[in-house]
């Protein structure tokens, strides 16, 4: 059994989380392979929820699988696809299956995904979902009714420290703290100077901050993210570094960059940990950790030769 995320967050250790993207379809072989490869190398694994508004195997299914395989899941829940009744029901199901950590997100907009004509829900937003969780812990649902049994969640949220203008994002961050978020995983950060100033501000709040590390796989991908992903700014220096890699070595360079950033964040004690997102490349997360010089203590290491 893995230690609970809350326990790890409170231990003062440098926290490492990563994420699993469920498949488009019912074949969970690859997801299972990724979970087995990562569950003992990180403290907890997020499962994305119809990421980028693309319909997939549900995050709850992935989280249950992680739990069954002995890992610590962080259930990502967006407000895009379910109303308050469905969200609360899924929280009850999650809790009953041993899933005690939830990341509350608003969710990407429907038109950016693969079901462009779908109805978007957004009955709640991320702050209201956090508040709903804390309400349920008090024994009531959003309809004011009593709940049988007690739920308790380690609830978190996300923040985009590189958004412009940043002040509205910071006000939302504070609202999430007030609504009960106890940890934050940030959107991808690349500019450590900017992140330092965010942390100077964020340190004032009683929450744990895990810096978002998104693996860069090529200069082209970095440029694409700059142009298309809100709140992500890859500095030109890193793009040049990726471009300078010999042919076929860009991924290796990306792993090196991610490892270097994690190493620096940890060495400086910039924040409480990192959240590694190797979108579609989950299998290289161990290499990133190796590049960062990180090996989890007190945890069963994965099978040798794997």
């Amino acid at each position: 059994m893995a230690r609970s995320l809350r326990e790890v967050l409170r231990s003062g250790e440098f926290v490492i989380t990563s994420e699993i993207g469920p498949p488009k379809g019912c074949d969970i072989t690859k997801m299972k392979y990724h979970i087995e490869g990562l569950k003992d190398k990180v403290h907890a694994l997020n499962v994305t929820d119809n990421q980028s508004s693309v319909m997939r195997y549900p995050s709850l299914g992935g989280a249950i699988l992680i739990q069954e395989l002995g890992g610590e899941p962080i259930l990502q829940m967006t407000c895009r696809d379910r109303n308050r009744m469905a969200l609360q029901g899924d929280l009850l199901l999650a809790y009953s299956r041993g899933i005690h950590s939830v990341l509350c997100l608003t969710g990407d907009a429907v038109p950016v995904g693969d079901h462009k004509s779908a109805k978007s829900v957004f009955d709640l937003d991320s702050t209201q979902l956090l508040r709903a969780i804390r309400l349920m812990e008090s024994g009531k649902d959003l309809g004011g009714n009593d709940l049988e049994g007690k739920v308790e969640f380690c609830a978190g949220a996300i923040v985009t420290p590189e958004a412009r203008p940043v002040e509205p994002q910071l006000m939302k961050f504070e609202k999430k703290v007030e609504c009960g978020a106890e940890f934050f995983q940030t959107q991808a950060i690349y500019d450590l100077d900017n992140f330092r100033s965010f942390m100077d501000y964020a340190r004032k709040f009683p929450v744990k901050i895990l810096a978002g590390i998104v693996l860069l796989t090529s200069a082209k991908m970095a440029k694409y993210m700059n142009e298309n992903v809100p709140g992500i700014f890859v500095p030109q220096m890193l793009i040049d570094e990726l471009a300078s890699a010999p042919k076929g070595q860009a991924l290796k360079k990306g792993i090196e960059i991610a490892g270097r950033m994690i190493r620096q964040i940890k060495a400086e004690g910039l924040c409480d940990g990192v959240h590694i997102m190797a979108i579609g490349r989950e299998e290289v997360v161990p290499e990133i950790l190796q590049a960062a010089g990180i090996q989890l203590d007190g945890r069963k290491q994965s099978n040798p030769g794997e």
Partner: protein
Amino acid sequence: MIRSITKQKPFEEVIRLLRDMERVFLIGCGTCTTMTHTGGQAEVLAMRKKLAEAGKRVTGFMVIPVACDNLTEEALQENLPAMREAQALLIMTCAFGVQTISRFLDIPVIPALDTLFIGKESGLGLYQEICTQCGECILGETGGICPVTSCHKGLVNGPCGGTNDGKCEVDRNKDCAWTLIYERLQKQGRVSIMRKFQPAKNYQVEPKPGKILLPLERSEG
């Protein structure tokens, strides 16, 4: 002035809806669809021509001054004979007009337009939705800009992470409602009201479909 904003259905769809109906009477509206050039006199005449080319017989046409008004009942009387001659009324008004007309006549109605939203003209030919009649107005705490309508996700507690340089993730040309709200509140020195937590909205303020009996007398005090 608020307007019902419409667009014409593809002509192929109009023809599909008029399948097995050879004789058609056309109705336009002198108000919103005239202004949006989707169902005024000119568009009605153009439709008449296209229908004729498609082998339909247009028994007559009219442009009702305000199709959604109850006076429509009287306006329709003038053309009853030509309408009765038709197998369908092809209606180039918004859906308010279509339903008003269908209330007064038992002739099949076919909409030629799709009603997009209730909005207003904010620039030449530019129409915007600014209120979705949610029944719980929060404009007093959002600088007079409605995020329920103007934010793609209808968020009431501040921007999502999809905003970028004041634009929305669904369209780089669309302003982020929360950036607009932030900027306006900043000018007014009231940014701190953005910190107020807005609880989950009540979607049953007026149970759908909205229907309310208002007092006929003026309220005192």
